[in-house]
C-alpha cells in the first residue's frame, strides 16, 4: 500500500496540470493589496478572498486529479502492467485515493499557512474590529480540504463505472454544485414558502438531501471571517460524517472496480 501511495504521489508531483494549478496560487500575493481597497473590513475581506481562492484551487485539483487519475491509467493501458502485479484491485484503488487525498490535504495545509500569512499582513494594514480567530481559520481550511476529499471519492466512484472521462469530470462538477445546494434546497422545500409544492417533489428533495453530500456542513467560512466561536457539535458532527461518508463511497467504488474487466 505504501508503495502504491508513494508512486501515485510521485505521479501527481511530476504532472504538468498540478504545476499549472499551483501557478494560480500566485494570486495570493495580490490579496493584501486588493483587501486594502475595502474601507471597513480589510481583514475580513482578505480572509474571504484567501479562503475563496484556496477553495477554487482545491476544486480544480480535485476535479483534475480525482476525475482523471483512474481514467488516465486505463486509457494509457497502465492498468495491464499494474493490476497484473500481485495486488488487490481494491488496494490499487484505495492507494490511489489516499495518495490524492493526502496530496490535497498537504496543498490545503501549505496554502492555509499562506492564508494565515496573508491575513496577518492585512491585519497589520488595518486592525480588524474583532480579533482574528485563528483556530476557526485553520479549521475552516481543514474542513474545506475534507469537503474536497469527499468530492474526490465521488470522482473515483464515477471513474469506476465509466470508460471515458466525461462522466467523472462532469459528474464530479455536478456533485460539487448539488452538494453545495442540498441544504438550501432542503430548507426551501420544507419552508412555508414552498407549501404549494407537490409532496412527491418534497420527498424527492429529502431523498437527495440524505443521499448527496452536504457540503454546507463543511463550510466554516462565516466563523473564520467574523471570528464567531465554533461549537463542538458543529465541528465534530461534520467530521464524523466525513469519516463515514468517504469510506462508504470508496467501498462502493472498490466493489464496482473489482468487477470491472480490463479488456
Amino acid at each position, binding site marked *: 500500500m505504501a*508503495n502504491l501511495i508513494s508512486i501515485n504521489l510521485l505521479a501527481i508531483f511530476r504532472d504538468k496540470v498540478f504545476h499549472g494549478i499551483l501557478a494560480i496560487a500566485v494570486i495570493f500575493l495580490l490579496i493584501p493589496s486588493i483587501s486594502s481597497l475595502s474601507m471597513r473590513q480589510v481583514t475580513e475581506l482578505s480572509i474571504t478572498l484567501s479562503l475563496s481562492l484556496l477553495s477554487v484551487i482545491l476544486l480544480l485539483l480535485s476535479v483534475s486529479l480525482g476525475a482523471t487519475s483512474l481514467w488516465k491509467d486505463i486509457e*494509457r493501458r497502465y492498468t495491464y502492467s499494474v493490476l*497484473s502485479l500481485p495486488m488487490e484491485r481494491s488496494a490499487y484503488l484505495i492507494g490511489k485515493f489516499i495518495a490524492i487525498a493526502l496530496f490535497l490535504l498537504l496543498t490545503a495545509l501549505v496554502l492555509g499557512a499562506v492564508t494565515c500569512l496573508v491575513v496577518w499582513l492585512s491585519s497589520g494594514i488595518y486592525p480588524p474590529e474583532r480579533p482574528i480567530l485563528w483556530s476557526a481559520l485553520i479549521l475552516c481550511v481543514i474542513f474545506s480540504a475534507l469537503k474536497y476529499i469527499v468530492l474526490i471519492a465521488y470522482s473515483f466512484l464515477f471513474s469506476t463505472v465509466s470508460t471515458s472521462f466525461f462522466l467523472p469530470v462532469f459528474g464530479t462538477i455536478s456533485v460539487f454544485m448539488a452538494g453545495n445546494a442540498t441544504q438550501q434546497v432542503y430548507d426551501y422545500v420544507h419552508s412555508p414558502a414552498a407549501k404549494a409544492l407537490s409532496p412527491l417533489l418534497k420527498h424527492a428533495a429529502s431523498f437527495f438531501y440524505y443521499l448527496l453530500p452536504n457540503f454546507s456542513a463543511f463550510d466554516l467560512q462565516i466563523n473564520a471571517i467574523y471570528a464567531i466561536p465554533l461549537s463542538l457539535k458543529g465541528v465534530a458532527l461534520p467530521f464524523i460524517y466525513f469519516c463515514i461518508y468517504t469510506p462508504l463511497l470508496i467501498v462502493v467504488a472498490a466493489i464496482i472496480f473489482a468487477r470491472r474487466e480490463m479488456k
Partner: protein
Amino acid sequence: MNVIEFTEITKVFRGKKGFIVNALKSMSLQVAKGEVFGFLGPNGAGKSTAIKILLGLIRSTAGSARIMGVDVNECSARLSVGYLPENPSFYDFLTGEEYLRFVGRSFGMDPSLLNSAGDRILRRLDLWEARKRPIRGYSKGMVQRLGLAQTLIHDPAVYILDEPMSGLDPIGRALVKEIIRELKELGKTVFFSTHITADVEAVCDRVGVINKGTLLTVDTVASILQRGVEGYVVQRFLPDGTTDRQLVPKSDLHTFIEQSIASRWSIERIEPKRKDIEAFFLDIVAVEQRHETQG
C-alpha cells in the same frame, strides 16, 4: 503438478446492442514445469483473452484456471508470475530504474536484493544507460525490453509473455530468444503467445495452435518437425569432380544411398526437406476453415 492449467475455460464478451463474441470456447490446456510453451494463433484468435484470464484482468465466463495450483481469482496466484503485456505501457513519469523498484516492491522483494537484481537486469537488457531517464522518452523497443526486465526482476518461476517479440528489431528479437533459452536452462516455465511461427520453432518445446477461440492442436515442436519431413535433398559427387543434387522421397532414401555407393558416388550432404511450422500452422487453420464451410 501443472504450472499453468486451463480447465474448460470459456469467455463470452457481451458488447453493446446484444453483440456477442465467443472469445474462448471451452479451452483446456496444461503447461508443465520447465516447459517453454508457444501459444500460436492469428490476430484475434483468443490468445490475449486467455492470458488476461490467467492474470485476473478479466473473469472467465465458465471453467477455471490455475497457476501453480492457485486459482487465478486469488491475487496470490500472481506472486510467482512475471507478466509482459502486449504492447506494454508503463507509468511514463517514472524512470526505468524507478519502475523496476516499484515492481520489485510490489512483490515484496528485499531492498538490497532488489538493488543488485535491478542493476544486473538493466545491464542485461541494455537499459543501463537509459535507467535514469523517464520512460516517457523511451523508444518502443526500449519499452518492450523494460517490459521484459520487469518480468525478470523478482525471479519468478513462471513467465507469461504476450507477444514478447513484437515491436523489436532483429537484435532485440535475438536477445529475447536468448533470454527465453536461458530461462529454460534455469528450469523456469515460459508461456508465450505469438503469431510468428519462426519464433516458436526457435525456442519452444511445445506449441498450441488456437484459432477463433478453439484450441486446435497441442504438440511438441520436435514431433511436428519430424512429421513434416517430406523427403531429403542428397548432394553427391564422383571422384572425377562431377556433382549432383537430387530430391529423394522419404521412403526411397535407403535404396538411393545404397545405389549411389554402389555406383561409386560419395555422399556429400543429406538435408531433410520438410514443412516448417508455418506450413503446419497454415495447414491446421485451413483444415479448420474447410470443416467450417462444410459444416
